């Protein structure tokens, strides 16, 4: 089958949707499908990827999305789709003003759509809903990466969305080495207020007082990096800032971690990093918010704590570090849970959606 995958965000920029589309294309071609990725971007082009135009940074919902909505990019999307003549067009975030929207609108083939995002509220989305309704009807099969993401869409457009979770390359993360030497707390995420970096630091400061061997490993970058510059020098010396890391290089950083912290404050639709940490066998302590709650079941494959509560986060990390048997139990539970998100299984469900889209519409 020939499948065109449209990604709304700049191909070279870090982000969950890009990681998802890249891995999906890879797994589809492994199963013998022919794929073409359309995405904003300017970098050197890769085989099987068409970059449709220069991304612009659109500020929305507390983050900045590198999208591309120029008429030229629309023309390039149309041209590429005509030349490729796909059986199915798989548009990601078809309601973002970018490549996913153009691909869905201009597709010569049946359209499958995947919704990734979740926000507590979105006035713009609600306001635009009537305009987007014709497009909504055009989407032959609608997928969402989580219940949370699905609920966000169905609240505005009505039912008809199925959950096919994000996939994770479990084997790449499996190989991570178990903890050796001193105990390490791991952070992998953007350093944004929304991700709760301040909560993690505050919890670490509390833990560092009592646990002299504890270190904090920080993978990621963002404006909250400056919070590190305000730490007392002796605490700062125990933070290993590794900066932003390309997704391919990520698994190595999970090695040797004793616990993973993800105290995001909200606006998470899935929590891919949680699954990656679980696949790597690192016990997860995450905030109890909609997207994370779907991935981590408290006490089974990780611990959930109230968001924006450093004290609770520190206490939960301490439990993982000190309560006999807990870390091992969470490690095993996490690994088992991660298997449910294995790409090999997820991609079969996506294929099912493609087949369904190709069936003649009923009625």
């Amino acid at each position, binding site marked *: 089958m020939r499948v065109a995958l449209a990604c709304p965000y700049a191909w070279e920029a870090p982000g969950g949707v890009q990681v998802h589309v890249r891995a999906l294309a890879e797994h589809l071609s492994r199963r013998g499908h022919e794929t073409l990725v359309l995405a904003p971007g300017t970098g050197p082009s890769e085989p099987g990827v068409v970059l449709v135009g220069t991304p612009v940074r659109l500020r929305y919902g507390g983050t900045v999305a590198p999208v591309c909505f120029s008429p030229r990019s629309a023309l390039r999307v149309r041209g590429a789709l005509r030349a490729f003549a796909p059986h199915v067009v798989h548009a990601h975030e078809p309601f973002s003003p970018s490549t996913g929207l153009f691909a869905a609108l201009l597709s010569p083939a049946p359209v499958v759509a995947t919704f990734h995002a979740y926000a507590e509220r979105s006035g713009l989305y609600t306001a635009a809903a009537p305009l987007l309704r014709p497009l909504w009807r055009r989407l032959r099969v609608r997928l969402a990466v989580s219940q949370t993401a699905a609920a966000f869409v169905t609240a505005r457009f009505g039912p008809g969305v199925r959950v096919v979770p994000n996939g994770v390359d479990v084997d790449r993360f499996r190989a991570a080495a178990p903890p050796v030497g001193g105990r390490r707390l791991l952070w992998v995420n953007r350093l944004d207020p929304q991700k709760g970096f*301040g909560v993690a630091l*505050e919890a670490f*400061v509390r833990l560092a007082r009592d646990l002299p061997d504890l270190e904090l490993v920080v993978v990621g970058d963002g404006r909250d990096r*400056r*919070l590190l*510059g*305000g730490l007392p*020098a002796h605490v700062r*010396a125990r933070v290993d800032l590794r900066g932003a890391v390309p997704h391919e290089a990520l698994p190595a950083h999970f090695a040797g971690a004793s616990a993973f912290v993800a105290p995001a404050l909200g606006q998470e639709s899935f929590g891919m990093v949680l699954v990656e940490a679980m696949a790597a066998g690192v016990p997860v302590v995450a905030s109890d918010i909609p997207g994370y709650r779907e991935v981590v079941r408290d006490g089974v494959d990780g611990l959930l704590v109230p968001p924006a509560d*450093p004290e609770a986060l520190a206490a939960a990390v301490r439990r993982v570090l000190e309560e006999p048997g807990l870390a091992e139990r969470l490690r095993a539970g996490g690994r088992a849970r991660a298997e449910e998100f294995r790409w090999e299984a997820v991609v079969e469900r996506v294929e099912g959606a493609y087949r369904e889209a190709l069936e003649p519409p009923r009625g």
Partner: protein
Amino acid sequence: MPGPGPELWGQLADLRSVLSLRATQWLGMRLPRPVGLRAAELYHRLSYPASRAQRAVVARNLARVLGRPPGDPLVQRATRECFRLYAQYWYETFALRTMTPEEVDRRFRVQGIEHVDRALEEGKGVVLALPHMGNWDAAGHWLCLHGYRVTAVAEALRPREVFELFYRHRRALGLDIVPLVPGVRVSDVLAERLARNHVVALVADRDLTGRGVAVEMFGAPRRLPSGPARLALATGAPLSTCSVYTAPDGWRCVIAPPLEVERSGDLREDVARLTRSIARDFERFIAAAPADWHMFQPAWDGEPSR
């Protein structure tokens, strides 16, 4: 019976600041580093609880920088660290006087000195604009030890003894000091130093006149002095920004590439544009180490917005 008048209290306060400065200088020049750092730490611990008003000022500044409310524990911690580093600054700045050049070299690491060298090859001097970060005296001293001729400006501090102590201190570090006193056009003196290919180092993150250039830093308006931009535009000297950070074993200094100086014909606009570029560099420097920013006056008017 009338009590002592305000004049007497003023004189006593002056006397206190003179004596404590002299004591700090005396100790700084004599205590070996481990002892001096311990003493600074001890001083910090004893004096910190008593400095409520100043703490509130620093916390408001850092709240803006860190993007969190002043009461946030991370802001409070950064405030404490800021006072600790400031105490360390006082020991270290006087300790520089008795440090061997080899030790200064070992402790002071510089990145970007080639920008100064390249600028000086043109023979028009170079303007270095610095924020109050880490230890600016150490930067001046290091440059002097390496054969650069460095000119700096001294504020007209009161009382006179304090002014003189700093004047002599910075002269002893090798700096050429131009006092900011009425009747002298400092800009002319500095232009003349630049013509002699000096490095003119200006600490420029605080506008004392109220007539500085409006810039935005960390999302809020404030003013920066226009002096560095004016001087560079008037003389054709390149302008670089520079920052010093306190490191565990000394200092780390970063000199940025020269800023682009545009001449549109409208001097006021050119000064404003160049000063905004300085603000952007300063913002980056401060964000890298907020607690190392020795800013003990309100840096912004009003409260942070969140």
